[in-house]
């Protein structure tokens, strides 16, 4: 249960800068997620907190104590942190019990105490009946839980998780997400979680730090980031999004690519803009401002994933699955956008799209 303060941490390997000026404070009991694509520097940041990497500059404090920075460096084994690795790193030559008990045996805790605490944590992670098994006899999900149990048994101040669920199948991932969150809430432990999966991030976090190219793009609660992304990257990375190129003219934004159609706009931006709208915020509305033709739609049970041709663009619209039967490809439809985000057209969108393709 502790506070992490990161002051202006940068990390470079030789000439290559992988982390730029990371500055943040994680409060006691918060669930923080570092979210971003591969190679963005999130794992590096995690390893700096853990003590496996040293920052090139900047400082890291755990509970007011300087652990990395300047001439000071506290080695990983002295930081009182629990960590779950992507590859689980469960030791194959020890059984589940010994794996989980390991941190306690290092601390030379008494045997009776060890038994008690291990039993408790095995119960929390639903592994009680596997205590004597060897890791090679366990499934991936079970091994992951062993790693989790091991990380928790010493009641650490801080729990770090490095993409722990990426090796599991979809259903298991969902249930593990839930379990981890439950455990965190119950124990009130501070968690720093690294992932590239935005659904995970959204579901579990108190705060998300979206990182790209070593720089934090935005940090905040999931709702804030989702609905008020500060740039095109964040808008695109979380959730689904439609991007449009438009120009502000007389209180409206005109979309040349959609045949000159426009929507009402009362914001401050002027000139050329990138407009982002979430497909679920675009509705089929007989009174809508945009007009187009329904080309295809995909029935996903709970939603109807549609593609509407408006001008030169194919716009993605997520509609209610209930009305699927009423929509017929080729229909002329009208759309209204109940909420959208506007960004300066500074080429960022093009740069981002380039990287993606």
């Amino acid at each position: 249960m502790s506070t992490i303060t990161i002051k202006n941490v940068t990390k470079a390997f030789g000439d290559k800068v992988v982390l730029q000026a990371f500055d943040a404070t994680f409060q006691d009991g918060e669930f923080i997620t570092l979210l971003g694509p591969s190679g963005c520097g999130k794992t590096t940041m995690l390893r700096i907190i853990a003590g496996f990497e040293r920052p090139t500059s900047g400082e890291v404090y755990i509970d007011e104590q300087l652990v990395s920075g300047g001439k000071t460096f506290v080695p990983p084994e002295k930081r009182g942190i629990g960590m779950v690795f992507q590859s689980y790193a469960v030791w194959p030559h020890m059984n589940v019990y010994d794996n989980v008990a390991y941190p306690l045996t290092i601390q030379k805790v008494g045997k009776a105490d060890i038994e008690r605490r291990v039993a408790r944590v095995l119960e929390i992670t639903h592994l009680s009946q596997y205590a004597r098994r060897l890791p090679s006899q366990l499934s991936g999900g079970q091994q992951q839980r062993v790693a989790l149990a091991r990380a928790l048994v010493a009641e650490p101040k801080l729990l770090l998780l490095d993409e722990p669920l990426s090796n599991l199948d979809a259903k298991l991932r969902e249930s593990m997400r839930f379990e981890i969150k439950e455990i965190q809430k119950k124990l009130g432990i501070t968690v720093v979680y690294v992932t590239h999966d935005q659904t995970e991030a959204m579901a579990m976090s108190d705060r998300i730090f979206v990182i790209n190219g070593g720089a934090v793009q935005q940090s905040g609660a999931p709702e804030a980031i989702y609905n008020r992304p500060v740039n095109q990257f964040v808008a695109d990375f979380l959730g689904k999004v439609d991007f449009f190129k438009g120009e502000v003219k007389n209180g409206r934004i005109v979309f040349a690519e959609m045949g000159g159609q426009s929507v009402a706009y009362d914001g401050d931006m002027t000139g050329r803009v990138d407009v982002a709208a979430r497909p679920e915020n675009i509705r089929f509305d007989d009174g809508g401002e945009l007009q187009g033709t329904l080309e295809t739609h995909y029935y996903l049970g709970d939603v109807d994933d549609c593609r509407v041709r408006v001008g030169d663009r194919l716009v993605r619209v997520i509609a209610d699955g209930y009305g699927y039967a009423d929509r017929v490809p080729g229909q002329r439809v009208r759309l209204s956008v109940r909420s959208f985000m506007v960004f300066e057209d500074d080429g960022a969108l093009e740069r981002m799209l380039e990287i993606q393709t």
Partner: protein
Amino acid sequence: MTKIGLALGFLLGAALVFMGYKGLTAFQQSGFTSESAYTVIYRLSDAVSAAWEDRLSPELDRLSGDERDKVDQIARELASQDDDIPREAVYKRLYAEYLIGGPKVSTAAKKAVTSLSGDAATDFRRALLQCLLDEDAPVPTRAEKLAGDATGAERQAALMQALFVSLGSTEAGVTNHVNAFKKTVRGKAAQEAALNMIAAGTLNALWQFIVGHSRTVMLIGALFMLNAALLWLLMGSEKRWALDVKWLVIMLIIDFMLVFQLLPVVYMTFKGLFPEGRFSLSTLKRLTGYPLNLEALKNTLIASTVTMVLGTLIAFPLAWLVGRTDLYGRKFFRGLFVMTYMVPPYVGAMAWLRLMNPNAGTINQWLRALFHLSDAPGPLNVYTLGGLIWVLTTFYYPYAFITISRAMEKMDPSLEEASRISGATPLKTVFTVTLPMMMPSLIAGALLVFVSAASCYGIPSIIGTPGNVNTVTTRIVEFVSLGQKGMNDATALSVFLMAVALAILFVSDVVLAKKQYITVSGKSTRPAVVELRGARLPLTALVSLFAVIVVLLPFATILTTSFKIDIGKAVTAPGNFTLSNWRTVFARAETLSCLKNSLVFAAVTATAGLLIACVMSYLLQRTRIRGRSIPNFLITLGSGTPSVVIALGLIMTMRGGFGVNIYGTATILIIAYLIKYLMMGMRTVVSAMSQIHVSLEECSQVSGASWLKTMRRITVPLIFPSIAAGWFLIFIPSFYELSMTTLLYSSTTKTIGFQLYETWTFTSQPMSCAMAFGILLFVGLLNLLLNRLTKGEFSI
């Protein structure tokens, strides 16, 4: 479909064996000295027939009936043949007799006759025939030397001989055949039989081939049968009956191993256990009766075990420090520590002799000066069991070091990190996580050290013998020198060594089987560096001290000796420094050709060895066939056999006795090196492959890649560091190997190791030191070059 093919193959093999056997029996009853006699007879028969048909018979036909009969009669008498032998056979026989056992005719006389050709030759022959028919006819001039003064029967014999000489039997090919005849058909009875065969001309091409190569035919037949049976078993156990490249490769390698690796060694073992053809432990009993032998056994066991333990104890921390921490000068140390085994054992032993002999050893002198001890011999005495163990350890620990280093590099670092974050210091992590995870490669390395130390001869003979510390290997060589009876004793003793090697292998496999750890998981990871912080400087100092004592001191001794004129004086003494040794070494043309030979042989050995190791390792770890660990045992058997016994085994089995004759060629040297050193590569590859998860390979197969492709593009690259290490582990000792080379070499296959030893024994030790150091530099440069070329992938 495949099953039918296999059955056919089996039958074909059986047929070959049968035919070969018949041929062999025919040969054994023939009284000829060698099977190739049949080929020779066949060729001579051809030549004789050709001469008869083209040149003699037409001439005879030209004569009138009576004349012809008269000549025939003369011929028959000369050949002492009965009337019922057809006349053609008589002449052919005479001709053959002359060719083979004919009287010596002086070169000049021969030339006079054979220089005729065409019409002149024909005229000459006709003149001779006339002489045969008419006693008074003048002998042609050229034939005078042959028959000038003779009369009567002698004259006729001489004329007949001249006739045959003129048939032009001096073509090079025929002369070779005649020489070969003399070598393969010895003894009167045999020659008689051979002559009859030539005369009769009934030997057909197929039969002569079969008899001439009866043993090879039997061998090939046996291999066919064996392959067919093995394939049946292998495919049956996998329940996949498709004939795939994989099987062909495996079969080829198994055949190779059976004939060239297994046969010599098993042959010698057999001789040890079955002297005089019956199973008897009498030799073993007798041997254990000698207290000296028991002492030698004890010494060998103690020395090898302690060397193994010490070597591993040294190698593991060093590998960890150099591979996983931020020790100063890691790269430098890494290169340095593998250097000790790049010089031949006796050179290293000599250096230690110079340093630690009790009377005048350099280190002893320093110690005496330092601690103000008396002038008495000591305090260190290298001529003891302890001294032997010390030198063995300094020489062989690199085997363990290399094996462990390579495996450590490929280990998943998060296993150690998980321990660190759980609160364990780096040191504790080493003991609780790193060590258990590295156990397979640790054991592999230890095994290498043990077997190498146990079967080493050079070091015990230089360090042990002067101090009367006897080992099994030195006893074996002593027995071998005793003569024929000693050979049996020697073989029996070496059986002991082989048994020990096998026992160790067995134990290690049992121990390892329980701990097969997959640690290379396919996620590319960067090995984490452990920061030593406070301990960094002291540990670097410690490692440096170790490097100085174990590596630099002996090498410095070798180097300084190479510059000396008088070994007894310091190199700095006035007038004692010279470059002449170095100059001579580089100036000798022979050195260059020896170097080339060594390079080629060692490289071929290492590459072939690695190939075999990969395939065998695959067999061992990726298939479920019963008995798949047998090749593994056999390879270890070979490595545990003392060199001199291997060489003897090869001499006895590879001269044609089993259908293969590679005596005196480069091939036999390579085979010898393979037998002795294959295990080095095998163990590193096996332990590396055991650490790879099979899913990595399965993934490739699912993507459609054939077995060969998977091996080549997935498996091999993954274990490449271990393959490279294994390559060098085979290359280096093959490069300067001595014991087997001296027994098996021929003038064109002299190696640098042999050259080195020659210089050592006959020229001077300083020159030999110059050569040894030169070899070291050369190998070091080679390593550097390979390192650069393959961007650090392929090097020691």
